[in-house]
């Protein structure tokens, strides 16, 4: 059977032992090879440690090793006989929103870590809120350092109960949340089942990661595909090459290349090209390997249409029977990722799908107090790590879905025109509904 791929993220606060947990997952799945272990052992001895510091497997930059902290999102890869994993390891302390938003934006599952001695802390609430807002489909609470509370069931049950309540209040379904007691240092319930937790009947962390359903919710949504590139072989001198000859009459070939963002598409489907709104029929869904019976979310395809209409990069192909709103006024949630704060009525660039347009960002109406998870006054600006709400006016109308409905067509970037830097991650609508502050 072919292996599938699970993209997941880890988040936790300082000293929860996240690097050690990631190191343990890599080590126990034999994803760390002898030369890497030797390097860690050498470095651990140099630092005067008696046991190898598994976090050194993860902290890759010189500054991280010197300061003993993780600065940036790091990507890790490991596999088992049934599944491959891409892990976005997001550091907890500096710029936690920026890093968590980045790591979680592509994740189908997030592992949130807490220290069994401290239980749910403010940082846990913040992380859980950000993961809920980004609509990460599944959540794991890993209660770490259970060896340090004597594997006490009562303590762990209390943390589990509190977290289940928190997750529910943030909109996670109960079956989307799994709590697992672990010790990353000793290895309890990470890959091997612990002999110290006979009262725990659930899966190990790896066991859960291996069996959780991987098909994202995007496949069941209405069809959406941003057009990336128009493939027209007749424009090039090489259209008669041997590679191309099997495609037959290339003179008239015109294919719209893109990665299906949501839903599925089959030949015969009625689609609309937005923002213009012309309707046509899909004649071919294909890849370089040939025609597909059906293209589904996540696959890069080329689509051919029945009518010869003017379509360019930036356009969005959508299911005719379930279209997004086309609007130049967008109510959005902004995660501010830059040191440069938002100024009221700032003129910025907005990248949505494959289209970049100018935008004026109105004064933020409110922002989230991540300590209390309530809406508070934004006082006209958003700074680094702030999450706030604002109304945006775009130069070109954009076809948008609510982020809570379809992630790919409900998300955008705000870009600073002079520097080109990414200022904010934008989510259409209010994906995290909170009560206002009292």
């Amino acid at each position, binding site marked *: 059977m*072919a*292996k*599938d*791929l699970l993209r997941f993220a880890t988040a936790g606060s300082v000293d929860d032992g996240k690097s050690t947990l990631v190191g343990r997952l890599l080590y126990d799945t034999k994803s760390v*090879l*002898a*030369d890497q272990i030797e*390097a860690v052992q050498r470095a651990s001895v140099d630092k005067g440690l008696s046991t190898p510091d598994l976090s050194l497997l993860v902290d*890759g*930059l*010189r*500054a991280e*090793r010197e300061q003993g902290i993780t600065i*940036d*999102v790091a*990507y890790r*890869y490991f596999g088992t006989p049934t599944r*491959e994993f*891409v892990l976005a390891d997001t550091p907890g302390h500096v710029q936690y929103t920026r890093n968590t*938003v*980045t790591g979680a*934006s592509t994740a189908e599952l997030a592992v949130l870590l807490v220290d069994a001695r401290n239980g749910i802390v403010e940082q846990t609430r913040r992380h859980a809120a950000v993961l809920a807002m980004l609509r990460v489909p599944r959540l794991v609470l890993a209660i770490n350092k259970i060896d340090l509370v004597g594997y006490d069931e009562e303590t762990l049950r209390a943390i589990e109960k509190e977290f289940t309540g928190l997750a529910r209040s943030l909109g996670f379904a109960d079956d989307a949340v799994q709590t697992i007691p672990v010790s990353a240092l000793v290895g309890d319930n990470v890959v091997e089942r612990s002999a110290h937790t006979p009262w725990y009947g659930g899966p190990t962390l790896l066991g859960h990661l291996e069996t959780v359903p991987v098909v994202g919710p995007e496949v069941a949504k209405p069809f959406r595909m941003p057009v*990336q*590139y128009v*493939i*027209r*072989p007749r*424009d*090039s001198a*090489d*259209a008669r*090459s041997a*590679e*191309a000859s099997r*495609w037959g009459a290339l003179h008239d*070939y015109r294919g719209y*290349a893109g*990665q299906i963002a949501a839903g599925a598409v089959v030949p015969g489907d009625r689609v609309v090209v937005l923002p213009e709104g012309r309707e046509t029929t899909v004649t071919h869904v294909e*890849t*370089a390997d*040939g*025609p*597909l*019976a*059906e293209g*589904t979310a*996540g*696959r*890069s395809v080329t689509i051919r249409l029945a009518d010869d209409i003017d379509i360019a990069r930036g356009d969005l192909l959508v299911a005719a029977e379930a279209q997004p709103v086309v609007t130049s006024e967008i109510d959005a949630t902004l995660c501010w990722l830059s040191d440069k704060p938002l100024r009221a009525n700032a003129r910025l660039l907005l*990248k949505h*799908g*494959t289209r970049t347009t100018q935008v004026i960002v109105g004064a933020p109406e409110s922002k989230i107090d991540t300590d209390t998870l309530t809406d508070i006054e934004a006082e006209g600006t958003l700074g680094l790590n702030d999450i706030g709400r604002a109304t945006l006016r775009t130069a070109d109308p954009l076809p948008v879905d609510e982020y809570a409905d379809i992630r*790919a067509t409900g*998300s*955008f970037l705000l*870009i600073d025109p002079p520097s*080109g*830097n*990414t200022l904010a*991650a934008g989510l259409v609508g209010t994906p995290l509904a909170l009560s206002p502050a009292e």
Partner: protein
Amino acid sequence: MTTIERATLDALDALESESIHIFREVAGEFDRPVILFSGGKDSTLLVHLAVKAFAPAPVPFPLLHVDTGHNFDEVIDFRDSIVERLGLRLEVAKVQDYIDDGRLVERADGTRNPLQTQPLLDAIVEHRFDAVFGGGRRDEERARAKERIMSLRDAFGRWDPRKQRPELWNLYNGRHAPGEHVRVFPISNWTELDVWRYIQREQIELPSIYYAHEREVFRRDGMWLTEGPWGGPRGAETLEKKSVRYRTVGDGSCTGAVESTATSLDDIIAEVTASRLTERGATRADDRLSEAAMEDRKREGYF
């Protein structure tokens, strides 16, 4: 042509789709992209994915090879055959030219991989390339694990890991000022094993030295090096005939062979699966220079 029924994506399908998406984004947003192409397995994979991204039209980018001068003949022949078959333009930037006219000086250890940075940056400026595709993978090395898929380089080609743009969803921000360029890593999320499994699935042709063959080699610093103009064997080093293959192909002076009898892709996949060493740890002297060797080279503008 048979219709593919497979609706859900397996791991290789998902990785392929992600890479193709990245190629198409760059084609849509940049004026002068180029693919770094050495003839090695990762850059051959890049070219294969680029072909699939734009079929039935040809790949809309030229290729650039930064040639250390310490080449394996089999790899250069292979490089030229790919260029010929696909009808692409190949630019070559030669380290040897820089050594001949004194712009670069041969290192004491004879290794030329670190010398590639200047010819690469000069070629980028000369041809005004604004996006440079490389075959770097995040599983190769710790500094690479922190690299973005689309990564800005300043006018000096430098990488500043602390000033990287956050990369969200699959929305890549490749904006850059004149004189700056962007490095693009379409196979960032592939592992060595993914690369081999995909090469097998797609029947991708590779230079023969990736497969086990008889070769005269000598032992240096724990690696099997081949005889060549880069010096060696010297002193007590002696040539022996061994059955070897290469896991990576770089500058001949610092790329070691591994003892192997793997003559087919099945053999290689079995060998990689069972291997106790990373491909760089096993075969690349340039990464052994210091704990942060790769980070330091990347900061200066290396691949």
